[in-house]
């Protein structure tokens, strides 16, 4: 553990003057934020287990931001592990079969995003027949940036931290602009331990994957941002890297939402991404640690993204697990394999409690961005009847985007769209820090989602 040290980096480049007051005082921290109980002790000591093969998987055709895939298989087809079953032109990331077997159906199914999407349902034959095209690569030295990006695209990799932005697009649009690569290992959401376990158990894959990304960008330095509540993971990464890698593990003070892209960039480099801008506009590219590991699998093993680590946890569970889970595994199968519910579930979330989406059914499958299935019992009910804002200003103090949530809430209630824009509501990253902290218990994030929609509608109407 001796190598773990607090990280400090002087602001560099033309962006160093970006941040004035707040940021320089508390150099290398973002503004605001909250300290929810991290609850990671429930599952952080559970080693990653290979999930017992599910009978059936449901693979949605849209697991990324961009154009949905068109199914390449039809009912009755036989598929193999890693076989491409959906693709499309444009900004699209292909999807692959995660088990071998027969296609049962190609139809819309519920998925974690809420609505039903076109999905391929595969009945597992338990043979694990590998797609013949999959072959490990001996050396990647001779591959060009374009070729490597192509491999990442073909492997179906999209951001695995939850946002599911196509990784190949992030890379190709960032080449030339990016001078700093940051790996997001913050895992600031409470309860989730999937990335923690991944780093502890496969640090060398993370480092190798990161070296590939460095090679693509032609950079010789990279940073891994990790919170100080994961000392073993940080130590494992430090032990796995060699000096020649030029990789710096930055241990950051634990605070939510450290893992939000803009906040992580601020914490590691002291740069602020301008409103509406992409990280590349301040020379940064951020990759989730699970994504980096998927890059390793794709480039070295030739294996597309068909599995990921999922934490199954929460107060409603009898027991907790970290599973290496085939994409498409229904939540119900995960819960059952982990020992089932101890009490009736009150809420089931995909992801953690700060930004996770509550599900109405357990038939929804694990997708590329699913890092956890969090099951809450009634004891986690936090509803307050008739909340009244008391103007305590705590929401203003914790908003990492420097917004004024109470004003935004009031404007949304009044339907004052103009003021919503003046309050920069579109800057809101929906991190939930304000609602977490609001003593009145107001559904602030819910209000902002409505408000953003209203504002976007009004803007569209104004244009038309």
């Amino acid at each position, binding site marked *: 553990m001796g190598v773990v040290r607090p990280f400090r980096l002087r602001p560099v480049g033309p962006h160093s003057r970006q941040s004035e007051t707040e940021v320089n005082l508390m150099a290398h921290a973002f503004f605001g934020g909250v300290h929810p109980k991290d609850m990671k002790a429930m599952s952080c000591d559970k080693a990653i287990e290979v999930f017992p093969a599910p009978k059936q998987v449901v693979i949605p055709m849209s697991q990324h931001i961009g154009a949905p895939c068109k199914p390449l298989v039809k009912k009755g087809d036989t598929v193999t592990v890693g076989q491409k079953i959906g693709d499309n032109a444009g900004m699209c990331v292909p999807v692959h079969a995660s088990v071998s077997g027969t296609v049962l159906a190609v139809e819309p199914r519920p998925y974690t995003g809420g*609505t039903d999407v076109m999905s391929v349902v595969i009945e597992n034959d338990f043979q694990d027949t590998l797609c013949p095209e999959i072959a490990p690569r001996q050396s990647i030295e001779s591959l060009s940036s374009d070729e490597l990006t192509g491999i990442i695209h073909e492997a179906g990799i999209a951001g695995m931290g939850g946002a599911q932005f196509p990784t190949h697009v992030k890379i190709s649009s960032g080449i030339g602009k990016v001078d700093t690569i940051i790996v997001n290992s913050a895992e600031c959401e409470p309860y989730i331990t999937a990335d923690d376990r991944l780093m502890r158990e496969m640090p060398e894959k993370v480092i190798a994957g990161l070296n590939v990304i460095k090679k693509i960008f032609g950079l010789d330095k990279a940073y891994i941002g990790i919170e100080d509540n994961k000392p073993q993971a940080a130590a494992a990464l430090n032990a796995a890297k060699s000096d020649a890698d030029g990789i710096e593990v930055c241990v950051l003070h634990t605070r939510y939402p450290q893992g939000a892209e803009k906040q992580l960039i601020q914490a590691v480099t002291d740069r*602020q991404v301008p409103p509406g801008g992409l990280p590349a506009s301040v020379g940064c590219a951020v990759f989730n640690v699970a994504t980096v590991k998927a890059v390793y699998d794709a480039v070295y093993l030739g294996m597309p993204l068909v599995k990921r680590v999922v934490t199954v946890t929460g107060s409603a569970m009898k027991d907790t697990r970290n599973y290496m889970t085939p994409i498409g595994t229904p939540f*119900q199968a995960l819960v059952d394999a982990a020992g089932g519910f101890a009490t009736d579930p009150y809420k089931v979330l995909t992801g953690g*409690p700060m930004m996770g989406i*509550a599900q109405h059914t357990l038939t929804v499958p694990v997708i590329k961005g699913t890092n956890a299935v969090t099951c809450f019992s009634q004891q986690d009910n936090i509803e307050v009847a008739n909340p009244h804002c008391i103007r305590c200003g705590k929401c203003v103090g914790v908003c990492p985007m420097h917004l004024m949530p109470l*004003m935004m809430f009031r404007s949304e209630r009044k339907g004052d769209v103009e003021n919503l824009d003046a309050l920069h509501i579109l800057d809101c990253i929906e991190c939930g820090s304000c609602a977490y902290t609001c003593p009145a218990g107001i559904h602030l994030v819910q209000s902002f989602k409505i408000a953003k929609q209203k504002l976007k509608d009004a803007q569209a109407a104004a244009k038309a």
Partner: protein
Amino acid sequence: MDTNIEKKADQATPAAAQPAAPKPAAPKSAPAPSYNLTVSVSPHVHSAESTRSIMLDVLIALMPALIGACFFFGMRALTLTAVSAAGCVFFEWVYRKAMKLDCTVGDCSAIVTGVLLAFVCPVTTPYWTILIGDAFAILLVKQLFGGIGQNFMNPALAARAFMFSWAVIMTTWVVPGTAVSVFGANADATTAATALSYMHTGALPDGISLSSLFTGFAGGCLGETSAMLLLIGGVYLVLRKVISPRIPLVYIATVAVLTFLFPQGNDRLVWMGYQLFGGGLMLGAIFMATDYVTSPVTKNGQLIYAIGCGLITVFIRYFGSYAEGVSYSILLMNACVFLFDKLGRPQRFGVLKTKKEGER
């Protein structure tokens, strides 16, 4: 209740929430047990703090001063405070009931108003007077504007200003140590001059030592006399993160600097000490100026507000017709909070200061 939440959630996120209707296409091979799952928008966890817990913390912080008041002025301090708190709760309950609104008595904010109002009245105030004050504070200042969080003036201070219609009652100070009777009127009270009334004439108070002002053994309103006990409460509130020390510190510092720079009498420091501990400054700075509803929510706004409170307090004390300026200065600043929040609005994330001004 749960179903309500579900409905709300559905409207909230067009893409994120679907009614929990069972889907016809549910896989046959794995008959999914159906659960009564609640769908709501994130976040799904909450800090331990609630409006009620905050108000209870404020009440706890006021306790040392209340106990002190009983010691200085007798048990009437306690009964008057209790009557005032009960009055506020009663008026709040009646109004919410009569207007068919949800009952907000449970958040304890009315109790805080009641206690604070008692704290800024002389211990000899008749019960009927304070009940009128309660009614004014709760009905006119708080509820008429929509209840908790909506009023723009501190209810306790506004009610106190209103109660000055009975000027004699409101300026009768008993000598500390006189146990004022719990029931009788205030006829038997011996009046004492307060430190401020001396200083208003430009002289250091006669026979009131600075240390007795600090501990609270001095004439004045029920709960304002003991700087020491109020400061203990203030430290508690800061430690519990109920308030930030910004407003009280800046407010008190502004008064300190001004009175130090413009002393009357020989010794600057002593003059400053009397100004700081001799009136309602501690109660005002720690408990009144920090009232959430009527103070700015932004850091910079709070700074301007607190400096403004300090300036006007000293101004009234030096040049006004009243000896005390704390409550009027806070009320005045309350009215400008909207402006301060505009001025103090945080810098937009990712935008340079200079650029922002150019943008406008």
